[in-house]
C-alpha cells in the first residue's frame, strides 16, 4: 500500500493543481467537437493572421541590458518556464522508443528536423521543431518531487541551511528593474519556488488562475482616487515615523517597498497585460481553453510588457497508473499551448529574445509498471529549450535503445542553468554570498552548452 503513488498524491498534486487536468481534457474535446481545432493544426500562418493590425500587448519594452556588444546575437532578455508538475514521461513525448517493449503504444512522428522524432500526440510541436532544441540526455539524482522541483528551479540539490534562489529570482535580481511596476518573476497556475536568500523583492508574484490573475488589484468599492491618495499619504507619514523611531529596521523598509510596488502595480497601465479579454477570441482559443493554454498566452503578454521571467505550470504528469491514457489529454494541452506560444512569440517579434524552458522534476521509468504506469526516473530524461537565440532545430544527446541509460552527451542541471544565464547576459560564474556567509555560485560550476549558445 505504501508506495510512491501514495507519496505523490500527497506531495505534488496539491502544488500543481490537479484540477487543471480535468478541465483540459473536457475543453479540448469540446474544441475538437466544434471543429475549430483543425484551424490550429496548420500552426504559424493562421495564428499570424489573427493578429493582423493588433498592436495591443507590444508596448515599449524596458531596455534589455546590452552586454558583450561584439556578440553576433543580442542576448536574450526574457525566460518563460513551462513547468510540468509531477514529472513528465520522456518516452511518450520527446524521446520515443517505438518498437521496444519500453516504448508503449504511441507512435513516433517525423519532424522537419533531421533525426528529430517525437510522440504522435505532439503534432503541432513537430510543425515548430525548427524552433526547439530537445535534450534527451538530462541526468539527475533526485527522484522525489520536492527535491526534484528544488533542483530544477535552483540548479542545486536541497539540503543544508542555504535556501537557494530559483532561476527566476536570479534573473529578477540580475536583470530586473527594482522600480518597475510589474514584478520581474511571475508564476502562473503553480506555486513555483521562491527567492531563497535573495529576499522578498525577488519572490515570484503567484497567479493562481490566468483568467482571474490578481486578487484585490482594484481599489475598494466607493474609494475614489482622492481618498486613496489621502490614505497613502497618511500611511506614508506613519511608515516614516515608525522607521525613524525604530532606527530604520530592514523588515519595515522591505515591507514598504513591497507595498509601494503593489500600489505601482495597481496604477500601472501595464496591468492591462493581465487582462486576457483584450486578446481576440480566436487567439485565446488558439492557445487552448484551459489554464495552461491561457497561462501561456498570459506569459506572452507579460513578456511583451517587459516581465523578465514567467513560469506557467501544467500539472498531472505523475502517471504511476494509466500513463498512456492520461498522456493523450496532457499532450494535447501541452502541444496546443507550447506550439502556439512559439508561433505567437515569433509573430510578436519576441521569440529571438525569449528563451522557453520546458521541464519537470524528473523523467519516468522506461519500464512500464503493472498498472500501465511509469514511476519516477531521474537517471536519463528529457527537457526542451526554445527561442532566445539558442541554436534550435536539433536533438542533443541520446539514451540507450531501452531508455535506461544516457548513451551520449550526459547533461546536468547546472549546465542548463549556465546556458540560460549565459544567453541572457548573466555571468554564470558569479558567486553570491548567502546570509550565513557561504559562497553560492549562480550555476554550481555549470558550463554553457556549446551546442546551444
Amino acid at each position, binding site marked *: 500500500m505504501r508506495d510512491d503513488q501514495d507519496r505523490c498524491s*500527497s506531495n505534488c498534486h496539491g502544488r500543481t493543481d490537479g484540477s487543471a487536468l480535468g478541465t483540459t481534457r473536457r475543453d479540448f474535446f469540446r474544441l475538437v467537437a466544434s471543429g475549430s481545432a483543425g484551424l490550429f493544426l496548420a500552426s504559424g500562418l493562421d495564428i499570424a493572421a489573427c493578429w493582423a493590425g493588433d498592436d495591443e500587448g507590444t508596448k515599449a519594452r524596458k531596455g534589455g541590458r546590452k552586454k558583450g556588444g561584439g556578440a553576433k546575437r543580442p542576448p536574450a532578455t526574457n525566460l518563460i518556464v513551462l513547468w510540468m508538475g509531477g514529472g513528465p514521461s520522456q518516452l511518450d513525448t520527446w524521446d520515443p522508443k517505438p518498437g521496444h517493449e519500453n516504448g508503449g503504444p504511441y507512435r513516433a512522428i517525423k519532424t522537419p528536423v533531421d533525426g528529430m522524432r517525437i510522440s504522435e500526440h505532439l503534432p503541432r510541436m513537430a510543425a515548430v521543431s525548427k524552433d526547439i532544441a530537445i535534450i534527451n540526455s538530462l541526468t539527475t539524482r533526485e527522484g522525489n518531487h520536492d527535491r526534484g522541483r528544488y533542483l530544477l528551479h535552483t540548479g542545486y540539490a536541497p539540503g543544508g541551511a542555504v535556501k537557494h534562489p530559483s532561476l527566476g529570482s536570479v534573473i529578477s535580481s540580475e536583470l530586473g528593474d527594482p522600480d518597475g511596476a510589474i514584478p520581474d518573476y511571475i508564476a502562473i497556475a503553480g506555486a513555483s519556488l521562491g527567492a531563497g536568500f535573495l529576499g522578498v523583492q525577488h519572490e515570484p508574484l503567484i497567479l493562481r488562475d490566468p483568467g482571474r490573475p490578481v486578487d484585490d488589484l482594484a481599489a475598494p468599492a466607493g474609494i475614489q482616487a482622492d481618498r486613496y491618495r489621502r490614505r497613502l499619504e497618511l500611511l506614508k507619514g506613519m511608515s516614516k*515615523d515608525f522607521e525613524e523611531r525604530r532606527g530604520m529596521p530592514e523588515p519595515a523598509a522591505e515591507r514598504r517597498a513591497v507595498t509601494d510596488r503593489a500600489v505601482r502595480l495597481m496604477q500601472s497601465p501595464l496591468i492591462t497585460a493581465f487582462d486576457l479579454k483584450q486578446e481576440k477570441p480566436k487567439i485565446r482559443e488558439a492557445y487552448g481553453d484551459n489554464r495552461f493554454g491561457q497561462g501561456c498566452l498570459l506569459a506572452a503578454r507579460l513578456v511583451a510588457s517587459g516581465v523578465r521571467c514567467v513560469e506557467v505550470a501544467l500539472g498531472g504528469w505523475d502517471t504511476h497508473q494509466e500513463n498512456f491514457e492520461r498522456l493523450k489529454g496532457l499532450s494535447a494541452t501541452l502541444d496546443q499551448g507550447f506550439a502556439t506560444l512559439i508561433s505567437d512569440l515569433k509573430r510578436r517579434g519576441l521569440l529571438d529574445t525569449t528563451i522557453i524552458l520546458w521541464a519537470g522534476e524528473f523523467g519516468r521509468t522506461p519500464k512500464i509498471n503493472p498498472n500501465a504506469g511509469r514511476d519516477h526516473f531521474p537517471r536519463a530524461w528529457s527537457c526542451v529549450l526554445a527561442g532566445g537565440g539558442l541554436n534550435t532545430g536539433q536533438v542533443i544527446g541520446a539514451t540507450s535503445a531501452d531508455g535506461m541509460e544516457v548513451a551520449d552527451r550526459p547533461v546536468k542541471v547546472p549546465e542548463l542553468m549556465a546556458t540560460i544565464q549565459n544567453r541572457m547576459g548573466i555571468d554564470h560564474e558569479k558567486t553570491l554570498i548567502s546570509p550565513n556567509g557561504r559562497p553560492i555560485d549562480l550555476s554550481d560550476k555549470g558550463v554553457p552548452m556549446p551546442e546551444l549558445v
Partner: protein
Amino acid sequence: MSRARLFVTLALGVLVLGVALVPPVEPALERTFARDGETALQAARRLASGIDAVIELRLDDEGISSSPPASEAAWLRRISVDLTGRIPSAWEVVAFLESDAPDKRERKVEELLGSEAWARYRAWQLTAAYIGRRPSGGGGGREAPLLLQAWLEGRLAEGARYDDIVREIITAEGFVDDNGAVAFYLRHPTPPDVTGAVSRLFLGTPIQCAQCHDHPYADWSREQFFGMTAFFIRTSNYTKRIDPPPMPKDPKKNGMNNGGMMGKKKAPPPPKRAEEVAADRVRRIKERMRENARYGLRDDRNTEIRIPQAGETDRAMFVRGARAAARPDVIPPQFLFAPIAKKAAPEEQGTTTREAPKASRKSDPSRRIEFADHLAAEGRDRFAKATVNRIWKEMFGRGIVDPVDDLDLGDNTHPELLDLLAADFIASDYDLRHIQRSIALSRTYRRSSKRTEGNEDDETMFSRFYMRPMPPEALIGSILIATGAIDEHLEAGREKRGRHAALNVGQIYDLSQRFTYAFDDDEMGEALDFEASIPQALMFLNGSLVNDGVERGIAELVAMDMAGLRNDSERVQHLYLRTLSRPPSRKEMARASALLKSAGRAEYARQAAFEDLFWALLNSSEFFFNH
C-alpha cells in the same frame, strides 16, 4: 562557558533572595512546580533571571550595548501576540496601562497562558512546524492541518505534558477521524519522510539528505539514515473506503427529515460561538471521512529495510515477507544517538522491542514505540533543546541555535543558555508554559526593538527585540480584533453579533492560506518564516477583510457613537489603542485633528476621514510587525 555557568549560579543565588521580597500573588500562580517547593512563578522568575544573566554577560563580553526596556504597552502587545496570536483589545490595553498592581505583568502572562486562545494558537504553531499549514494532497492530507490542530489544541488545553504529546504522535494508531495525531503521518507519508521530520523536529538533526548520499557537512551516513528509517519502515498509511449507505426507500420521508418543502420550517439555529463553529467544521470533516473514506495507519511486522543500490528506485528499500528479516542486507533499527547495538540474529529479533508483538494483532507498532523510548532516553536532551530552541525562536525572532532545525551545524550563539532552558524544561515535566512564562518575564524579552548606540549591527546577541512579521494566524487574528469582528473579550469566546459568528478559527485558517500559498517555499524550510508579498500587500490595501472591517468599525465609532467616547480626540485615541495598542503621540494626535478639521462638519466626510485614518493604521508596519 564555565565562567558563564559560574555567573549564572551567582545570579540564581541573588534571585533566591529576591524571590522572598516579591509581594504575594494570586493563588492561581502558586501551583507547585516540580522542583522542591517552588511555585510556578518562582520557577519562572528564577529561569528568567538565568536567561538575563547569560545574555547580559555575553553582551558585556562582546561590547554590545542593550536597548532600553520597551514601553508597557509595547510589552503587552508582543506578549499577547506571542502567547495567544492576537494583539490586545483597546480595553485590555487601557486596563493594563492603568493598573497599579506591582505584579501586573505576571498576572497578564498567567491570564494569557490560561486562556483558550493560548492552546489554540500554540496548536497552530506546532501544526505549522510539524506538517505545514497548507492543505495538500490526497489520502486525508488536505484535512490534516485542521485535524492535527484540533487534536493538539485539545491536548494542550487539558494540560498534557509536551513529551507525552510527542510520544502520542510518534506512536499514533488508528484512523485520523478518531485520533488527530495520525495526521502527522498523512503529511509525512513514507518512512523516509517520517524519519526526516522526526529527526529535524524532535532531535534537531536534519538527516534527510543522508537518504541519498552521506551528509556533505555532518557525519551522518546513509547507513545511519536507514537505521533510523527502520523504526518507521513498517508503518504505512491506508485508506478504508466506506460503502455508501443504501438509498432511503421513501424519498419524501427523507425530504421531510431534512426539513424539506413538505415539512414544517425549522427556526434558524441560534448564532454560535466561534469555538462551536470551528468544532463543527472539524466534526463535519470527521463525519464525512467516516461516511466515505477513513485514513489510517498500520504497521506490518514483516517489513524490513535495506539500502537501495545504484540504479534502484526508492522502493527497493522495502523488503517484505515472513523471511524478510533473514536477508543479509537488512538494516536493523538504530537510534542515531544510542550506542550501536549488535545486529541480532533473525530469530532473536522481536525480543529487542520492549513490548513483544501480540500475535493476534494485525498491526504492530512496536518499532515506533521503541523509537519513542529512545527519544525519551538517549534522545532526551536533544529533544528538550530542539523544543526550547523553537520556542525561543518564536519569541525572539531568532533561535539560540539558528537555523532551528540543526542543533549541530546551526549557529549556536549561547550554548549555556540552551542547556539551561533545556534542563529546566525537563525538570518542569516538559511544560511549554513554564518556558514561555520565564521568557515573558525576562528583561531580555522586555527590551525595546529600537536600535541604540552600540547595538546597531547586532543581529544575534539579543541586545534588542528583533522585529519580525507576525505569523499568518496572528496577523489575521489581530485584524479581526482591531476591526471589532471578534469581541474584545476573547476569553469569553463570544462573538458580538450573529453575523460575525462565522469568523472563526477555520476561517482564520482559510484566510491564512492566502499568505502561505504565496510563501510556502519548500517543505524543508521553516514554515514559520513568512514575509511581505504583493498579494499580501494588495489584501491589506484593497481586500475586504481590512476594508469591510474599517467601514464597520467606523460606523460603530462615529454613527453609533460608541459609549464612553465623548469627542474626536478620544475617538482617535481609541483607534490607536485598537490597532497599535498604544495611545497616539502628541504629533500623531495633531495630525489626526488636522485631518478631521480638513474634512469639515458633514457627517459623511468626517466618517470618511476616520475610515482613512483607521485604514492607514491597519496598513502600517507598526501594525503588521511584532516588535
